[in-house]
């Protein structure tokens, strides 16, 4: 059985933030994740349908990079980033996301998956399948965007 993050003592749950989760991961250590950093992804990410709850962990304070840590298995994490901060001129598919999430356009935000090879400077971001988030309900969905301007491996650094 996968280790789940939900083994928090009930007393703790009431004392701390309602709905927060305690995550214990070999690589990310023990963390208390507040409810507002937990995402429900009802369909999972493409290829990972069994992982439906994720914790958003900040990589550095104020950084556009984050980790998405599976709460079903805290040893599985994805590198993600805020595409509007990482790609100049990026226009997020806000209207499409609002429809897909049944959310208000103003509540929609985006993360995109980041691939970091050994040569870190050659990191890329996937703008074909961004993760749209309804920040009010904290529900997310991976979209497929067919916009010829963006591909699945857009370089993040201009002088890679």
């Amino acid at each position: 059985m996968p280790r789940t993050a939900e083994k928090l003592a009930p007393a703790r749950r009431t004392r701390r933030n309602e709905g927060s989760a305690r995550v214990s991961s070999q690589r990310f250590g023990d963390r208390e994740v507040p409810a507002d950093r937990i995402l429900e992804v009802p369909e999972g990410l493409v290829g990972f349908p069994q992982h439906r709850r994720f914790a958003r962990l900040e990589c550095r304070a104020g950084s556009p990079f984050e980790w998405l840590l599976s709460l079903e298995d805290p040893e599985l994490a994805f590198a993600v980033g805020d595409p509007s901060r990482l790609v100049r001129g990026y226009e997020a598919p806000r209207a499409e996301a609002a429809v897909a999430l049944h959310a208000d356009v103003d509540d929609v935000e985006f993360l995109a998956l980041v691939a970091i090879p050994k040569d870190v400077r050659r990191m890329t971001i996937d703008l074909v399948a961004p993760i749209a988030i309804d920040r009010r309900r904290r529900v997310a969905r991976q979209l497929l965007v067919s916009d010829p301007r963006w591909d699945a491996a857009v370089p993040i650094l201009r002088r890679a």
Partner: protein
Amino acid sequence: MDGRGVRGAGARLTMLVLTRKIGETIRIGDEITVRVLGVRGGQVSLGFVAPANVRIFREEVVRSIEKQNLEAVVTDPGRLAEAARIWEDEADAEDG
């Protein structure tokens, strides 16, 4: 009904096989309709009517998204931290 179940490679996988003429449709559940629009050479055009929250992808597109998702799986958390640091340095250099 002219559909028939066929045992697939996996013991629990079955495939329903239906034959349709151009212009005819197939209903999947209550909300999804697939119409055969035309056949030319070896290519079949299909039209889909489905609620906006149903994802309809070409199989190869799903495979490529899967592959890209796999690329983003973190093997070494230190690498993203390094990426973040490099990115900040570059951003500062561009602003300065």
